[in-house]
């Protein structure tokens, strides 16, 4: 393994070899004043040149959110001081030279281009051979989207959601909020009110998207929260594989990230959604780090459709996220593969919901939790079988691995069964790395750290196999870095 690059945090001045993505991108930015009120929402809407209906929707969401009394939900097994929602910047946009979003890829601020190169996200198409189409989002706006032309030829729409609102209002109006309404939960309401950018994907009937689509999210501004919104629609018989990656600079203060992702799969369509979540996790003492409160949900609307979530969660101070699937179409399939790793003072409360409504719907849940240091890891999942879901089938497996005596692992599954023809199975285990396995490897000359890494990697294999090639390499490196310092 190449040694992790040394990165000196600009703000704290300390060397942070554990988090090499922690640099700040030096670009000028247009930053809205702190705080949230109707004027800010109007400002965001105006900046994005949104139609009236969009502003109305945002305001409705905001009023609903306000009615919840600024009190964040408390049911998850996470602890943090109350968040001051008036102390956050809700809109921050990097300024390009002419003050607008760059028209072509050549117009992008070279500083930005370099920064994304450093993150391993090339914005120059010619440099890629096979290629992944990338939508790069910095704070509140999308700065570049690659391969749009090639995708357009197939009728695939892949663009920032702000652009989709203007160019494809009929699709956005029909589906935005249809899977996650703004009344869904506290953070979904907040996101609906202030969401700034994110990705919109539409794959027309019968089209198999020829390349992976990817959005790379980056928080850059110190006081900014990120509130992205992603909407993916796979029309009849289509297929799309979507990748999502995220990082943030090292900051002493906690930063808020509250996203909403909605997936819609029509008849015979398939969406594969992979996440590599690597937000800044905070330092060894638990200072700083991103609060990652995300609502992700997909609906298998049509028959024989399929939605598959794969996530590797190694970042964030706190992760609160439950990528879910509503299995409405008959014979539809939902999958959830997850690895959540917490180290130092990280907390994760994550899992999934599978709601079976259609006949012969199937779901698989494989969740692997790894706790080290003082980390707190919770799997929380719901499998709900509605009376209409004849012949539904669910298999759930969640395993926890504990490294060190100060960490914790929790498993909170909910099974709600209202149809006798359904078959539901849930299994879970919790254990530490076995001394025998460690001994076996070390007696063959493998160092303790390497041995531990091998065991953890093996533990996660079932999930890593589901990752697209693009992520498979990165994830093994990430795992190594995240486990650093857990031995001894």
């Amino acid at each position, binding site marked *: 393994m190449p040694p992790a690059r040394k990165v000196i945090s600009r703000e704290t001045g300390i060397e942070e070899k554990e988090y090499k993505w922690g640099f700040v991108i030096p670009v000028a930015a247009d930053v809205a004043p702190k705080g949230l009120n109707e004027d800010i929402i109007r400002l965001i809407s105006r900046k994005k040149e949104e139609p009236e209906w969009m502003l109305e929707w945002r305001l409705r969401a905001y009023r609903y959110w306000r009615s919840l009394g600024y009190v964040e939900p408390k049911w998850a097994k996470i602890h943090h001081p109350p968040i001051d929602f008036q102390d956050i910047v809700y809109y921050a946009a990097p300024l390009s030279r002419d003050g607008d979003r760059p028209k072509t890829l050549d117009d992008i601020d070279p500083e930005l281009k370099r920064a994304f190169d450093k993150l391993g996200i090339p914005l120059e198409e010619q440099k890629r051979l096979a290629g992944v189409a990338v939508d790069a989002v910095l704070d509140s706006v999308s700065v570049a989207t690659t391969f749009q032309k090639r995708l357009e030829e197939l009728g695939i729409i892949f663009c920032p959601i702000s652009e989709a609102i203007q160019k494809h209002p009929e699709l956005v109006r029909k589906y935005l909020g249809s899977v996650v309404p703004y009344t869904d939960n506290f953070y979904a309401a907040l996101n609906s009110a202030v969401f700034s950018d994110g990705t919109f994907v539409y794959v027309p009937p019968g089209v198999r998207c020829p390349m992976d689509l990817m959005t790379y999210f980056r928080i850059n501004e110190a006081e900014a929260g990120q509130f992205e919104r992603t909407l993916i629609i796979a029309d009849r018989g289509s297929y799309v594989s979507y990748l999502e990656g995220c990082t943030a600079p090292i900051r002493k203060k906690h930063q808020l990230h509250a996203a909403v992702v909605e997936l819609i799969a029509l008849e015979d369509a398939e969406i594969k959604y992979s996440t590599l979540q690597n937000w800044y996790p905070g330092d060894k003492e638990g200072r700083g780090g991103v609060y990652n409160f995300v609502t992700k949900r997909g609906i298998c609307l049509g028959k024989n459709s399929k939605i598959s979530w794969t996530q590797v969660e190694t970042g964030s101070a706190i992760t609160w996220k439950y990528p879910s699937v509503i299995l409405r179409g008959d014979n539809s399939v939902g999958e959830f593969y997850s690895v959540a790793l917490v180290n130092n003072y990280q907390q994760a409360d994550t899992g999934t919901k599978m709601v079976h409504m259609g006949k012969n719907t199937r779901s698989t849940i494989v969740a692997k939790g790894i706790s080290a240091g003082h980390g707190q890891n919770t799997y929380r999942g719901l499998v709900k079988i509605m009376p209409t879901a004849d012949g539904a089938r669910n298999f759930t497996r969640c395993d926890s691995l504990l490294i060190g005596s100060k960490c914790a692992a929790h498993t909170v599954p909910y099974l709600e069964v209202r149809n006798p023809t359904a078959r539901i199975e*849930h299994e879970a285990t919790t254990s530490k790395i076995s001394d025998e396995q460690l001994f076996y490897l070390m007696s063959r000359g493998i160092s303790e750290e390497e041995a531990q890494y091998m065991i953890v990697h093996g533990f996660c294999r079932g999930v890593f196999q589901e990752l697209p090639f693009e992520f498979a390499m990165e994830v093994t490196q990430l795992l190594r870095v995240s486990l650093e310092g857990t031995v001894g």
Partner: protein
Amino acid sequence: MTQAPPVYETYARRFRELEAGRSEPDWLRELRREALGRFLDLGFPTARRGNEPWKYTDVGPVARTVFGPPPARPPLPLERLRRTLPWRPTWRRAVFVGGRYRPELSHLPAAGEEVTVLPLSRVLSQGDDLLERHLARYATYQDDAFAALNTAFFSDGALVVVPDGAEPERPLHLVFVSPESEGPYVHYPRVLVVLGRQSRLCLVESYLGLGDGPYLTSAVREFYLGEGAALEHYHLLLEGEAAYHVGQARFYQERDTSLRSVFFGRGCAIGRNDVRVDLDGPGSEAYLHGLYVTTGRQHLDNYINIDHIKPHCTSRLFYRGVLDGESHAIFGGTVYVRPGAQKTDAEQEDKNLLLSREAEVDSKPALEIYADDVKCGHGAAAGAVAEEALFYMLSRGIGPVLAQTLLIKGFASSVLDEVRLPALRTQLDRLLVDSLPRLRTEE
């Protein structure tokens, strides 16, 4: 919260009346006052969002009903008692009807039988050292409205004491009968069992409802297992169709103790089987098996928590449910492993058999683990009777009802096989079939 203030006013008034008529030691008076205060503060729990322990059970009907005192001299169909319960002549027995001790039905152990059973009504007024030391210590009422309610109001029940090293030969059967009545009433069974060091006991608890009308049984039982003690415990829940039952059992285990508990429960209008085990000494074990059967519109909520406080303890929690009709059964259980409780070995499992399209089961077997050198696992499953198995039997000339009976009995047997008293086992086999109307048609 939907507090109907008049109801709470009734409880407060009733408490003042009772208190005026009681002559109890100061500590108990104080305890009861505090408990009433907690009950009035907390109010009945609501199934609102975020109230996890009551997520699937709405006790609104209990909170809205004004319950009177139980009937004073109800008719008692002795034959039915003998037929329904494991009523063995050799067993020792304490019978309570409508919350009152009935000496003529009871058969208490004689002096020299290594176990003392005292009706609480006889102990409360003079006070008792053991009572003062243990009462309300394990069934804490500070955050639990039903425990607080019982603590404030109970007037009878059993105090069971097994001295150090004693091993009483005969099983002890505590019977709590809810008689028939004109209007809704409430009674508050209370049990305190104190097992001395290295002692043993086999205890059967039965709750039997006779009438069809609504009533509330609010039962609290506390079990203290002294160092090296072993308790074999059976719990039968056979309340009436319209009954509300909230039963709470608290087991507190010192080091090297052993608990083996088997529960058999039938549903009622609202039933709650709430068990908590505190493994507070190393080297202890707790085996909890349960079988619940719900039919019609019954509702039964099993809420089982095992707390591994000290290292080197083993726990097994195996529950199974058979659901029919439009019934609703719940299994909610958490195994906690506290920081430092290394070498914990815990397993938890809940399996459910759904016999009808309208039945609903909600299962939530949770683990909360704060130590690393542990072996913990859990599983849950739900489904119908396996079609292949059914087909196999049908193809061999076994009728559909009998085939289903066999499969259900087979499913239940992994729990019932844990019963070590032959007489009780026979009785439970019969109760299982009796509890499922669809199986009775054949016999």
